[in-house]
């Protein structure tokens, strides 16, 4: 583990390269373009021989379709985008979800909806966690709070994508991607060893073909298939719901926050503790599956929950659902990404 001063965009790219990423297909969109530019400059880096395909696509629609191809062929592929681009990728993600095709998308959340701003927000939460794509499509969503964790979650994201054959989104924001932090660079290992048996790349003596379809001619077939996808999601929810509960044991006030907001909340916790109020922080790391079970264990203790997020109150709904109607849950919406100390304390 070496300590390095890394910019978020480069750290994410580096983590992907260390994880054995083979293809990057992207499109410029603020505030994610730096990730693509880093990956463009990394072509031919002898440290990462697996990385051999970079394409700046003609749109996010084309980019996600290329991800589908590379993922279907059993290879690690990724992109980075922001809200408007992610909206365009929703169709491809829906197809990939049902065809069980893995790839990684980094969503660098900007102000939204529409063109919004190029400033950070956390307003893509509902989109990526509830239904990323039509028909009940989903993805696993991971939310790092800083540069170091972003690296670790990129690696974990690729692992989860291929273990469960599902698209994975890293939900981050312009602050994490643009800031520089000194991080202990984690030792990340390549995620894949050889080509998976389900890969679509030609039968090559296998005998039977691999067919990844997204359409069904029969409702019963669809029903059975989706029952399988639901079972898979239940397994994911049971095994892969990650969170961090900081000083929760004796807390009377618990902030619930993810990503960069969690660092602001951590400040608030420190300040309250300094003033003698036992405060804590519950930080979901997977936003989907949401760690509801862990949150629900904090019920019945008279804790005041304060949900802080840079949107109008999206994760608040998941927190409320996990805790039930009787707990004291307050929402602090920080739309436009504007946070003031008075709002927080």
């Amino acid at each position: 583990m070496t300590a390095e001063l890394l910019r978020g965009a480069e750290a994410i790219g580096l983590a992907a390269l260390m994880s054995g990423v083979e293809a990057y297909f992207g499109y410029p969109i603020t505030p994610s373009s730096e990730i693509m530019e880093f990956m463009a400059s990394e072509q031919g880096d002898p440290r990462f021989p697996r990385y051999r395909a970079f394409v700046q696509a003609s749109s996010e629609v084309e980019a996600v379709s290329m991800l589908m191809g590379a993922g279907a062929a059993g290879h690690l592929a990724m992109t980075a985008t922001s809200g408007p681009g992610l909206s365009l990728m929703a169709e491809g993600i829906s197809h990939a979800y049902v065809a069980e095709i893995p790839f990684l998308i980094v969503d660098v959340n900007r102000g939204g909806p529409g063109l919004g701003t190029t400033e950070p927000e956390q307003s893509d939460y509902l989109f990526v966690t509830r239904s990323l794509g039509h028909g009940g499509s989903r993805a696993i969503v991971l939310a790092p709070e800083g540069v170091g964790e972003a690296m670790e979650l990129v690696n974990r994201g690729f692992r989860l994508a291929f273990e469960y054959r599902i698209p994975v989104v890293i939900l981050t924001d312009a602050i994490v991607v643009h800031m520089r932090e000194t991080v202990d660079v984690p030792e990340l290992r390549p995620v894949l060893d050889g080509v998976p048996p389900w890969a679509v790349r030609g039968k090559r003596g296998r005998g039977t073909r691999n067919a990844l379809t997204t359409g069904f001619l029969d409702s019963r077939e669809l029903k059975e298939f989706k029952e399988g996808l639901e079972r898979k999601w239940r397994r994911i929810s049971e095994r892969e719901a990650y969170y961090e509960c900081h000083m929760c044991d004796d807390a009377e006030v618990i902030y619930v926050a993810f990503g960069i907001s969690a660092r602001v909340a951590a400040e608030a916790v420190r300040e309250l503790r300094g003033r003698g109020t036992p405060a804590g922080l519950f930080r979901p790391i997977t936003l989907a599956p949401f760690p509801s079970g862990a949150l629900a264990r904090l019920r019945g203790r008279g804790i005041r929950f304060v949900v802080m997020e840079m949107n109008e109150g999206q994760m608040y709904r998941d927190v409320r659902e996990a805790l039930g109607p009787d707990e004291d849950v307050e929402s602090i919406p920080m739309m436009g990404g504007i946070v003031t100390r008075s709002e927080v304390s």
Partner: protein
Amino acid sequence: MGAEVRQAKRIGLLYDGRASTFCPGCEHGLLLKLIARALEELGVADRAVMVGTVGCSSLGYLLFDSDFVQAPHGRAPAVMAGIKLVEPDAVVFAIQGDGDALSIGLQELLYAADRGIPMTIFMYNNMTFGMTGGQMAPTTIPGMRTTTTPRGRDVKLSGSPIDACRLLSAIDGPAYLRRAILAPRPLRVKGKIFYSAREALEAYRIVLNAFRAQLKGGFSFVEFVGTCNVNWRMGIDESKAFVHEVGAKYFPPGLCRDIYGLEGGGKV
């Protein structure tokens, strides 16, 4: 070429016994058969990857015993690019309808052509959106009645048919661009209709060339003009005549580009 091409061999890539879902007389099945035969003839059947499209063409995967992945409507060229960049030995192909290729998928097609990543695209041009019931398509002919042009396509409102070969000729990337009539020409002799295997055999040679172009590292695109007698509300023979007498005027057969000289010519 003559004797071996004409040999009527069993084709392994087509599942035994499975009937297609294509309408009687539709040339989709013919195209699929020629593709299967060509891949076997070139010895690359085991490396073939069919990328599914949306439209009647997409139903081919039910019959075709190769690795397969479905693409969203219009996106097959991009999905194929993704596969080819990580698996360069795979022989990737797609059968797109005129709607899939020139309507929703036009951008993906143009950029795949522009990059020239080796792949093979067959566009089955039947001047309509067949699977969804016969709506106007980018290649619908002026005056043609469809479900969304019930009084005939009006160029002032809906534009003119798009010439895919000409459009792609403006891009440097492709190695092989070809258009041909896939429907057999009906010949009326003494009140009886006769057909010949001429179109099918010429199409077979073109399909072989299209794959050869990919194997040489080039992007190949072939437009096959075929029938949709059901949505055109015509009988089988009438629909074949329509393609040759009317369709061929808007989509004349010809070689638009041949960088490798596969048709014995050289760059056109």
